[in-house]
Every structure is written in structure tokens, then in C-alpha cells.
């Protein structure tokens, strides 16, 4: 094979792997996991008819969504109504461009120098993820407004206010990660955690980051935008069939991306254990490059499971509680954490 062909195959392979994994495996599996874990927690059986353990249930659901009538209620703004679900999928797809999913490797001698397992090597690093994921607010606000329904408008307003409020907490938590690792590049952030995962010095940052993760993806206990008892299902009340399916898909993809970010920021990414590298147990990253990659995916899978676990065990917040938790607790914690981290770093250095 010529050099250029290998380059292109590597590029297409990275995109194919992540895109296929997210849309073809993680999202369908998560729907199944969500329903089975929910059933387990509520002492029910859950879907178990379609395929072994009901694993093909999501496929059946997908076909059903496809065959549903493409309904557009008469009061909606037709163009914007259709645009909103498409806009929700686009940022969800774009965010994982900078997520590295394995250590730099030569892929068993295919390349001369170790190459990054990352779709786009941007110099802005994770700031790209923060920028693109903020765009998800537009699709939600647009969906609610275009639906022209009071439940939808209220749900969309709540969702927008909540997402932008918790973005602050998330941003402040991430600044302390930059302080600790000295880079915005996700690969370098992971490499700086070789001896000590950032969860130990950054425990306060994690305390602010974790609720922000749930609030940013509109998941319970912060699923106020779709509080069933008050708002039907909030911004997607008027959506049905595949248009609803796209919102659902985007939610699971966003959960995956943010879980991956959490693992990269606080839990050492693909590093084996704090202070124990892959080389120390005699594993050659250049040959067995997929072992750290699978380890990284396993960590992400734990956080995805955690999302589901929390959803079925923790009750929903009230809206004023949600806003005061964000502004009066998490933002001060974030500021305090930056001060403490910076002072501790100066003190330990001198």
C-alpha cells in the first residue's frame, strides 16, 4: 500500500470507528440498558422478547419509528419545526472530533512515528467540545418555539436556562484541570495523569463537574425541561416518529461524549491505574494498541451506566432548587477550587 492510501485509510477508519460505534452500537445499546436497568431497579423484567435478552428491541423500535406517519401539527412553523431535530444531531456528531480514544500508537508498525487516535488534532483542544456542545441549546430553543405550544415553549426556556447556567460550573471545573495539566490538548491532559489521576487533586472540580454533566444532557435529576407531571415532555411535546427519535439519539450521543470527557479529565483516560502504566505490566502500546482503547471504552461505559443508575434512583429537583444549586453552590465551589488549586501549586513548588 502506498503512504497516502494508508493515511486516508487511517483517517476514514478513525471516523468510521467512532461514528459507527456511537450511532450503531452505543446509542441502541443504551436504550436497551436504560430499559433493562430501569426494570431491574423497579423489580420488573423489562423488554426480553425481541432477540436474546431483548437485545434487538431497539432495532424493532427503530423500524417502528421509521414507519410512523410524519406528523406536523397545523399550528407549528413548518420549516423550523423540521430544522430543530436535525440541528440537535449535528452538534452531537461534531463534538467527538477531538475526543482521543487511545494512546498515540504506530498501529503495530504501520507508521514510523506514533499517531494519535483522534479524528481532528485541533490546537484548541477541548474548548472545541465546549463551543460545539453549546450549540445544542439552539435546537432545543428552536424546537420549543417552532412547536407553538405552551408546554413546549416553557420546556425549551427551562432547558436553555438550565444548560447555560451549568455550562458555567462546567467551565470553572475545567479551568482547574488546565491548571493541573498545563494544556487544553486532551492527549496531553491524559498524559499528565500518568502518576496521579486528576480526580485526587481535582476532587472539588469533580464535585462541580458531575452535576453539570447531568444538567447539560438534561438527564434526571435535572430533567426539568421534560418534567412529565408539569410539562408533558417539554420541548418535544409536539414531536413524534423519527423527529422525536433524532432528539432521543442526540441525547444518548451527548451522554457518551460527556462521559468520555469526564474520563479524560478526571479518570486518566486510557491510563491503566494511577502510577501503573501499560508499559509497567509489559504491554507494548504499539502492538496491542486496542487494549488501552478498550480500557478507555470500559471507563466510559461505567459512566454511561451511572447516568442510567442515577436516573432511576434519584428524584427530580424543583426548578428553583436547580437554579440555586447551579448559581449559588456550584459556581462558588468552582471559583474556590481554582483559588485553592493555584495556591497549593505555588506552595508545593516553592
Amino acid at each position, binding site marked *: 500500500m502506498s503512504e497516502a492510501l494508508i493515511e486516508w485509510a487511517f*483517517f476514514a477508519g*478513525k*471516523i468510521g470507528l467512532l*461514528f459507527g460505534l456511537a*450511532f450503531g452500537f452505543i446509542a441502541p445499546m443504551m436504550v436497551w440498558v436504560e430499559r433493562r436497568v430501569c426494570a431491574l431497579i423497579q423489580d420488573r423484567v423489562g423488554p426480553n422478547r425481541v432477540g436474546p435478552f431483548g437485545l434487538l428491541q431497539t432495532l424493532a423500535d427503530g423500524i417502528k419509528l421509521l*414507519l*410512523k*406517519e*410524519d*406528523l406536523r*401539527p*397545523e*399550528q407549528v412553523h413548518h420549516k423550523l419545526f423540521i430544522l430543530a431535530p*436535525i440541528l440537535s*444531531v*449535528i452538534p452531537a*456528531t461534531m463534538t*467527538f*472530533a477531538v475526543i482521543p480514544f487511545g494512546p498515540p500508537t504506530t498501529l503495530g508498525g504501520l507508521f514510523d512515528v506514533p499517531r494519535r487516535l483522534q*479524528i481532528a488534532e*485541533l*490546537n484548541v483542544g477541548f*474548548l*472545541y467540545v465546549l463551543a460545539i456542545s453549546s450549540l445544542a441549546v439552539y435546537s432545543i430553543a428552536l424546537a420549543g418555539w417552532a412547536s*407553538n*405550544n405552551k408546554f413546549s*415553549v*416553557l420546556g425549551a*426556556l427551562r432547558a*436553555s*436556562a438550565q444548560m*447555560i447556567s451549568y*455550562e*458555567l460550573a462546567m*467551565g470553572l471545573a*475545567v*479551568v*482547574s484541570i*488546565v*491548571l493541573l*495539566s*498545563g*494544556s*487544553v490538548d486532551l492527549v496531553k491532559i491524559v498524559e499528565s495523569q500518568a502518576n496521579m489521576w486528576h480526580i485526587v487533586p481535582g476532587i472539588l472540580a469533580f464535585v462541580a463537574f458531575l452535576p453539570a454533566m447531568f444538567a447539560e444532557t438534561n438527564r434526571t435529576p435535572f430533567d426539568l425541561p421534560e418534567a412529565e407531571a408539569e410539562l408533558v415532555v417539554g420541548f418535544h*411535546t*409536539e414531536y413524534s*416518529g*423519527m*423527529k422525536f*427519535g*433524532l432528539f432521543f439519539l442526540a441525547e444518548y450521543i451527548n451522554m457518551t461524549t460527556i462521559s468520555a470527557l469526564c474520563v479524560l479529565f478526571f479518570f486518566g483516560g486510557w491510563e491503566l491505574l494511577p502510577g501503573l502504566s501499560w508499559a509497567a505490566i509489559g504491554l507494548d502500546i504499539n502492538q496491542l494498541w486496542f487494549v488501552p482503547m478498550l480500557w478507555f471504552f470500559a471507563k466510559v461505559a461505567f459512566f454511561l451506566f451511572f447516568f442510567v443508575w442515577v436516573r432511576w434512583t434519584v428524584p427530580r429537583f424543583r426548578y*428553583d432548587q436547580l*437554579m*440555586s444549586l447551579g*448559581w449559588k453552590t456550584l459556581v462558588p465551589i468552582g471559583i474556590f477550587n*481554582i483559588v485553592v488549586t*493555584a*495556591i497549593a*501549586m505555588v506552595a508545593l513548588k*516553592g
Partner: protein
Amino acid sequence: MLLSDYLGVFVLLSLGILTGVGALAAANIFGAKRYQPNKLSPYECGIPSEGAENQRYSIKFYLVAVSFILFDIEVIFLVPWALAFHQGLNVGHGGFLLAIGLVFLGVITLGLIYEWRRGLLDWNN
């Protein structure tokens, strides 16, 4: 910045558009088509919709949006400071950079306290 660095981003952008448009187009082609006027009525729990179509909403949402813009920009300004701090720490400028950062964080905190005291963060009144 090289444009080729962003090639992956553009590929993902087009894949995202394809997924969204493709799924909706497929649903439009394969979906059932049984026209019934009641299907097109808005969801209002069976009661006809009343009042203006897009009614006014609480000023609180607007205030949250304004304070978000202020604070988010300040948070983004902290990222270059954090990078400079990490570099400066290794060459012995840690104390100086820390002082600068504390002044900036102090201004943010003052803004937060002001908002808090003025009651902008209390959702209930």
C-alpha cells in the same frame, strides 16, 4: 491553524447533516400516510388552546441569559491564564501569576456577590 486539521470536523459535520436529513427523509418515504384532521391539532390535553400563541414569559430567563454571557466570557478568559500559570510556575513566576489570577477571580466573585445581594439568583421572587 491548518485547514487540513479541520478536515475531520467537516467530515463529521456532513455526516451529522446526512444522518439528520436522511433519517427524516426515510421516515417521510416509508412512514404511514393516513390523513385525519384531528391528528394535526395541538397537544393540549384535549382542551382547546387559549391565549396568545407565544405568550410572554418570566423576565428571570432573560436575566439568566445576561449573567451567563458575562460569566462565561470571564471563565473563558481564565483558560489562557491557567495555561500561562502552568508555564510560569516552572520558571519561578508562580507567585506573580497567582496574584494576577486572584485579582481577576476577585472581580468575578464581586460580580457574583452583587448579583446575589440584588436577588437576581433567587428564582422565587
